[in-house]
Each structure stands twice: as structure tokens, then as C-alpha cells.
């Protein structure tokens, strides 16, 4: 049986490790942090996992929180507009001031809203809970864990020693990505596209219109996006349901990087998030009258450049390592695909590793393994990069209007198809391509199938 080394104890690394252990392989994971450090640290994600990824976890016996974790039954879409209509993004120059630096604050209005039900629910288990538990589980099931913040020099020595038959780097967006060259043909951006500001809260109430757990999402014109993601988080030594709130701000907009530059205490951070909600998503602020932070480290602030990398890292002494998860495909979080991608990558890699247990994990095998994953990952990547545009294309405006009309008529066919697309991004072609969109709209909502005539 081959010896496999996995660097990084996140969604992809631990899932692959546990999968290979179950297949009887000898697996070592190198983790920068102990389970206690992971659990007691800051959050790392909003990590909502859709049905296909949850099913992969279930099949491995790893969705330990199926019953405790809120089951999100729908995806709610909202479009927030400033009172004077859609802003012309091109006309703003420089950095717009955040709400707390202005005396005048005018709440946005909700121009579009609809709810897309899911056939199968989505769940978000705080990675602090999940990864600390999976790491302990990995050790209990006979895996070897070495607590080590790995450096390139370590990988160079370990591959040169020949201790392992295959080394996988699943170290997220950390420094080891430097081993893998950016694939410019698949990476349209060279800088972060959204300033992320996320906080874990409790005490939020249900929307009066939808009295069940759901993901709530908003496009905020000229500002960015907002997410309210119910999940399961830490509560001292226990667990509690929570609402994870995330603003993703356009870099130059009022919630851009400049807005979050100060060091804030968790309560100051929450205060600013709530103030931003009152202006940009007031319908969400109405549900947040009594919210508070869930734990001493409830915040995550930062940003990163969406990047696809070449999957094979070459070490100075000639050793080869294969990248997985965010190391090779890091999508911006605005479409909630990253952790799902990580689960799919680990799933696909596991199959290739097991199928090749008697062979060599050489360069050709590595490339073929990644290519198989890319066949999946290209869909969420193209979708996410398209969504990073700051204004929706004309045909998307019609899709949203049509989805709202269907919602109001009690027939959320389009809303449901959009919600399904998030879970299965290969189905999203109809939304990305104007001709496909028009064809689909002609079937389900003919009155929206052609662009409105231009105003005279």
C-alpha cells in the first residue's frame, strides 16, 4: 500500500486523508495547528456546503452534524438599490466613505426579491468545529498527524528522501501556493476583487416571509454583496446555531478594503456590520435587533485574488508535489463554491489515488488527476469570475426580473433553477450565455425573453 503525505488539515486535506484511510492506505497529515488551536481560533469561512458535497461527506461517514446543524431549505435573493436608482459605477472615483464616517445615511430599497427552494438542504458547519473534529477522527482511525507548519525546504527534503509515494499540498491560500505557478489563461484577475468582512452572530430572527432556515443573499448596487448564512458554530465547549454575516465589498466602494483597515474589537466589528446592514440591507437589519457575537473570536476580515494554478509543484531537488483544493483553484467566496470545490477535488483525487495504488504517482498521473478535477472546477470558476463583475449584464437583469415574477405568482421555477445552479454549477450555462438565457426564458417566461426596447 502506498504511503501518502498530505500537507494541510482543511476541507480537502482531511477529507482526502479520511477517505484514503478508509481504503486501507497509510496516510500522514501535516497540520499547522492542533485541534484545540483550530477550535479556539478565528473562523476561516462561511463554508456553506451544498447537497452534492454534503453527500460526499455522508458517504464517508463524516457529516457528524447532520441533525444539529440548521438545514437551509432555500436560497433567498435580493437586489438592493440606492433610493435614486442604479448608480453609475464608472462615475465614482476614489474610495467611497463607509456608513460610519458619514452623517447622512439613506437606506437602500429592495428592488428585487425571490426565494429559490432547494430539493435537498444545504448546511454550514463552522470549519473550526469540523476540522478540529475531523483531525481528531483522522488520528483515531489510525492516521498519522505531524504538527508542523510546513516550509518548502521540508517538502524538498521529504520528497528527496522518498519517504512518501505521493505528496499532496492542501494548504489553502497559505504561503506554500508559491510552489505552484499561476495559470494566467484561467485567472482573469491579478488582485483581490472583494473586501471580505465576516462575523459570527446569534439572536437573529427569521424573515416574516420565510419562516425557515435559508441562505439570504443580496447584490447591493455600487457596494458589493451581503450574505446571511445560518450555520452551526462553537459555544464554549459546545455548539450553537448561528447566523454568519458577510459583506463582500467592491474594492473602491464604501465597504472596500479601506473600510476595514482599522483593528476592531469583535463588538466594534459587529457594530459596524449592523450599521452597514441598516443602510444597504435594511430588511436584514430588521431581523438583527438583538444580535450578539457568538464567541471571543468571531471575525474574519481580508481578501484574496481568485487564482487557478498549475497543479504540479517542482522542488529544488527534483521532487514533485500535487496541489489540491484552494491551492490549485481559489474562487472568490461570493458564490460559496470554495469549500464545495475542495470536497469535490478531494473526492476525485481519492478515486485516482486508489485506482493507481499499484502504479506510480508520476507527473503524467498528477496532471491527469488535476485535469479530471478541472472538468468539474471550470464550471464554478467561470461562474464565480462572471459574478465578480460589478454590474449584472442586461440578460441577467431580465433573469432576475423573471425570477421575481415567478416567485410572486407562486411558481418559483427560475428561482429554483438558479438555486440548483449554485449546487451544481455545470447547470449554469443558461445563465452565463445571453442566447441560452433567452432560449430558456422563451420556454418558462416568454415576456422576459427579449431585451426591452431602448428608451427613446
Amino acid at each position: 500500500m502506498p504511503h501518502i503525505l498530505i500537507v494541510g488539515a482543511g476541507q480537502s486535506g482531511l477529507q482526502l486523508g479520511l477517505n484514503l484511510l478508509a481504503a486501507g492506505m497509510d496516510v500522514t497529515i501535516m497540520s499547522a495547528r492542533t485541534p484545540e488551536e483550530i477550535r479556539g481560533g478565528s473562523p476561516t469561512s462561511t463554508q456553506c456546503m451544498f447537497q452534492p458535497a454534503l453527500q460526499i461527506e455522508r458517504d464517508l461517514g463524516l457529516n457528524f452534524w447532520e441533525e444539529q446543524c440548521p438545514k437551509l431549505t432555500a436560497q433567498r435573493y435580493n437586489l438592493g438599490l440606492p433610493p435614486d436608482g442604479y448608480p453609475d459605477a464608472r462615475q465614482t472615483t476614489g474610495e467611497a466613505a463607509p456608513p460610519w464616517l458619514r452623517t447622512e445615511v439613506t437606506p437602500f430599497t429592495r428592488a428585487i426579491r425571490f426565494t429559490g427552494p432547494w430539493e435537498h438542504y444545504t448546511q454550514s458547519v463552522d470549519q473550526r468545529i469540523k476540522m478540529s473534529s475531523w483531525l481528531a477522527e483522522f488520528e483515531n482511525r489510525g492516521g498519522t498527524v505531524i504538527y508542523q507548519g510546513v516550509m518548502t525546504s521540508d517538502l524538498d527534503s521529504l520528497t528527496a528522501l522518498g519517504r512518501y509515494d505521493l505528496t499532496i499540498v492542501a494548504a489553502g491560500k497559505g504561503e506554500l501556493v508559491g510552489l505552484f505557478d499561476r495559470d494566467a489563461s484561467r485567472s482573469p484577475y491579478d488582485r483581490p476583487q472583494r473586501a471580505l468582512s465576516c462575523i459570527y452572530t446569534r439572536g437573529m430572527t427569521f424573515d416574516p416571509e420565510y419562516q425557515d432556515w435559508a441562505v439570504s443573499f443580496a447584490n447591493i448596487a455600487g457596494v458589493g454583496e451581503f450574505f446571511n448564512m445560518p450555520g452551526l458554530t462553537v459555544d464554549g465547549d459546545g455548539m450553537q446555531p448561528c447566523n454568519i454575516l458577510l459583506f463582500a465589498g467592491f474594492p473602491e466602494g464604501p465597504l472596500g478594503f479601506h473600510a476595514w483597515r482599522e483593528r476592531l474589537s469583535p463588538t466594534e466589528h459587529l457594530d459596524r456590520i449592523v450599521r452597514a446592514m441598516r443602510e444597504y440591507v435594511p430588511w436584514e437589519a430588521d431581523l438583527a435587533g438583538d444580535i450578539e457575537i457568538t464567541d471571543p473570536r468571531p471575525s474574519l476580515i481580508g481578501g484574496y485574488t481568485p487564482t487557478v494554478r498549475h497543479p504540479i509543484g517542482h522542488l529544488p531537488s527534483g521532487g514533485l508535489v500535487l496541489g489540491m483544493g484552494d491551492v490549485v483553484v481559489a474562487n472568490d467566496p461570493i458564490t460559496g463554491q470554495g469549500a464545495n470545490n475542495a470536497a469535490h477535488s478531494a473526492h476525485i483525487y481519492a478515486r485516482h489515488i486508489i485506482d493507481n495504488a499499484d502504479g506510480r504517482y508520476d507527473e503524467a498521473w498528477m496532471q491527469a488527476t488535476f485535469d479530471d478535477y478541472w472538468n468539474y472546477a471550470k464550471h464554478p470558476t467561470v461562474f464565480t469570475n462572471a459574478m465578480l463583475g460589478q454590474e449584472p449584464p442586461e440578460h441577467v437583469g431580465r433573469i432576475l426580473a423573471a425570477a421575481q415574477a415567478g416567485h410572486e405568482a407562486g411558481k418559483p421555477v427560475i428561482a429554483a433553477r438558479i438555486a440548483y445552479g449554485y449546487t451544481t454549477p455545470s447547470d449554469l450555462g443558461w445563465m452565463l450565455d445571453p442566447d441560452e438565457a433567452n432560449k430558456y426564458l422563451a420556454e418558462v417566461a416568454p415576456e422576459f425573453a427579449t431585451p426591452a426596447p431602448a428608451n427613446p
Partner: protein
Amino acid sequence: MATPRTHPKVRPYVLTGGRTVTRHRLLVHTLVTVPYYDPGLAAAMLPEARTLYEQARDGCSVAELSALSGLSLGVTRVIVSDLAAAQRVRVHAETYGSPFDRRLLERVRDGLRALA
């Protein structure tokens, strides 16, 4: 692209006797000793493993083993873990705390670019 050097499929550290039941974390200050030194076994080991095996005869922390052998902490941990699994060395449990240097931890934490 560099042409990868091919490695013969040697297993430098044969894992004998299955896995150890009690696993102890190899923190930088965790003590490692050799319960029974076997010179014949030492002679048959690969150089890196032999160096660590011999150094540990006097009882050393993981950090000391790394410094004395000139192997990185990562490689030291991997080899000590193998030697422990084969019951060639003993890893003492009575030490607690984080294995890491805070600064390193912060660098690798999540790769989110911290705001300046």
C-alpha cells in the same frame, strides 16, 4: 519545467509492528529517548534516521534533535514519528502546549491577506 529526478522506490523507514496505540504530539519541547539502543539496527538505518536515533540516546527534545542533526523540524518530526511507530524511540507525553512559533502560525493561518 525541471526534469524531475526519479527516486528509487525505497522505503527508508520500515514500519514494523503496526501502528502505535498511543500517539503523542511531537511538540518542539517533547522529550524523545531510546529505550533500548541497538547498534546493529543503527548501522542498517538510513543516515538521517541513524543520526536522530543516535542523538536521542541521551534524551533530547524534538527541537534539539533537529538542531543537532541539521535536519529541519519538519523532517525531524516525520522521522521521529516513524521511529516511534516502530518502537525504536519513545516519545514522552508529559508536555503540553502549542508546537508553534506564533509568528509562523500567523503566517500560515489562512492565507487571507491581512489588511495593512
